[in-house]
């Protein structure tokens, strides 16, 4: 199954934050989450060696300008409560085990979202002895949101794509992670 369309939708061109886009996204997300999905998505963030840039923007996403929670998307403390693992960082070798443990702890069905160029393919750290070049080396990735770091509006657009995809009738079963 090709998920390339998800990527293309998530990767809107970077630019200044556009109020109109944020407003229209709010409306579309609201509709998708409330009427079709009928529930919220719980997100567990997993940092796999990020420079903290994606984290700064994720925190902005929780702030009043973007206010992620009004779309039914919220961050949770435990992977056991999570529908979505939101992964940042190039996946350092030192964090592979922690990421896999978080994935195994999350209940089915679950999604893996790779946020930022590092999580997509290692970014600037690609090829280093200490990194595995992105989330895909350990887990099946459902959605990528590129950028270094992606702006909050871009992250919001990507997560919107996820909500819409989640509302589609056929969902692929995803229970196994990439083998060693």
């Amino acid at each position, binding site marked *: 199954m090709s998920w390339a369309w998800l990527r293309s939708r998530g990767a809107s061109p970077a630019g200044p934050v556009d109020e109109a886009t944020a407003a229209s996204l709010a409306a579309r997300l609201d509709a998708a989450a409330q009427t079709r999905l009928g529930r919220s998505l719980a997100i567990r963030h997993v940092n796999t060696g990020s420079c903290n840039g994606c984290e700064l923007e994720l925190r902005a996403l929780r702030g009043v300008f973007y206010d992620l929670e009004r779309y039914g998307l919220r961050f949770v403390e435990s992977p056991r409560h999570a529908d979505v693992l939101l992964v940042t960082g190039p996946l350092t070798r030192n964090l592979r085990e922690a990421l896999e443990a978080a994935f195994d702890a999350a209940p089915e069905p679950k999604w893996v979202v790779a946020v930022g160029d590092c999580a997509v393919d290692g970014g600037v750290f690609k090829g280093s002895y200490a990194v595995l070049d992105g989330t895909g080396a350990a887990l099946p990735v459902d959605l990528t949101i590129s950028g270094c770091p992606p*702006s909050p509006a871009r992250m919001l657009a990507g997560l919107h794509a996820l909500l819409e995809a989640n509302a589609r009738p056929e969902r692929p079963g995803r229970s196994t992670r990439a083998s060693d």
Partner: protein
Amino acid sequence: MTALDLICSGTAEQCRPWRRFSLPPEAWSAMIAALAESPEPVLLGLWADSQQIHALFRDATGALIGSVAVEGGRYPALSPVRPVASRPECMIRDLWGHIAVGGDERTWLDHGRWPMAHPLSPRPGLPGGAVEPPQFPGVEDPGATQVPLGPIHGLIDEPAHLRLVTRGDTVLRAEARLGYAHRGILALMRGKSPRAAARFIARLAAETTVAHSVAFARAAESALETPVPPRAVAWRTVMLEQEQIAGRLDDLARLADAAGMGPLHAALGEHRETLLRAAERAFGHRLMMDVVVPGGLAADIAPDGATALRQVGDGLAEALPSLRQRLDPLLGRLDGLGRIVSGSDAGGDAAARCAARLSGIGRSLDRLRAALDALPDGPVSAALPAASGEGLDCGDSQRGTVWHWLRLDHGQIAACFPCDPAWSLWPLAETAMAGESVAEEQMIRLSFGLPCAALDL
């Protein structure tokens, strides 16, 4: 003779603008003995290259480096007289394989997962030296238990493992284990031009990306004796202050969030977001990554950039008195929490650290607006020659002064090190947690604003 006198009696190397001295082994040992006698000078950082160990000390004018050659893979440890050297010594052993005689023998960055041991050594070894999981010393108390926290913890945070030894609700001892975010940045930078390597330095730690980029660029420019155009210098000042304001707002917002003060969290976040949007208009990047490069700036600033930054600065200055008032309940919540004795900004209790951030915002705003008022015209970058040289220079971040050292060989980086103030913040935070309630771990941690990525390299 004081330790600084002993260092200055060594062989002066061609390091600019701050000095570096190579010491013979006996002078290094005498320096350690002198350090044991007095808390001065303060050790700012410790690192290595393939032949030498470099210790960065604060002196009256700024800083200087004392270096000693590694003999037979060993050197005398500094940690017995300067405990803050303990983690850097472990880092040096993990990366270069040089052993600190008399230091901590546990691994720090190497968690036994790399394809080789000592990746920066001229002859990397086979993996397998790391003992995992590391042993954390307990305490002599039959009622004590160990509480492991992390590396994945909090809502949106950096990876760190914290081991608390507790009795009941009280923390007896706290110890951090880092290295999870080790990306191998030093190995990636080696052999590259300063301009190419600046991309890695910009991504060492995002909240201090400008400070690290400026320190690195200044070190490279000093090493190559290339002056930077005045316009680039002025814009760098603007960016440094802008970053410090945004960083301090983020620190305060996280504290407010953790304390359950929603409206305050929202207000601080709003100011921060406004700053980041102005930064995007001026510099094309919200966090100002890749704008500062060795030689000056990557490009000139957008024509309306100065106006946008000025407006935001004025707005924040106007809102500052009311923010100060609204922070009062938070200061009350943090009163007396995690008290430590230290000469730095991190001294006092969590409320003092919080108040220091707020006054820091005021000072940064003054400097930001002064710099915006006096922007010179002209070019924003100078070409760097592909020459050899050595530089040590600094940049100011919201956590303290960042130091960068590098040695260039025909325009390529032969050795370099980014020295972040967080190396000394983590031990202070561990001390501050002892005696406090387990439930206050997060508040104390946030009151220090402890970065991981900058130390994990």
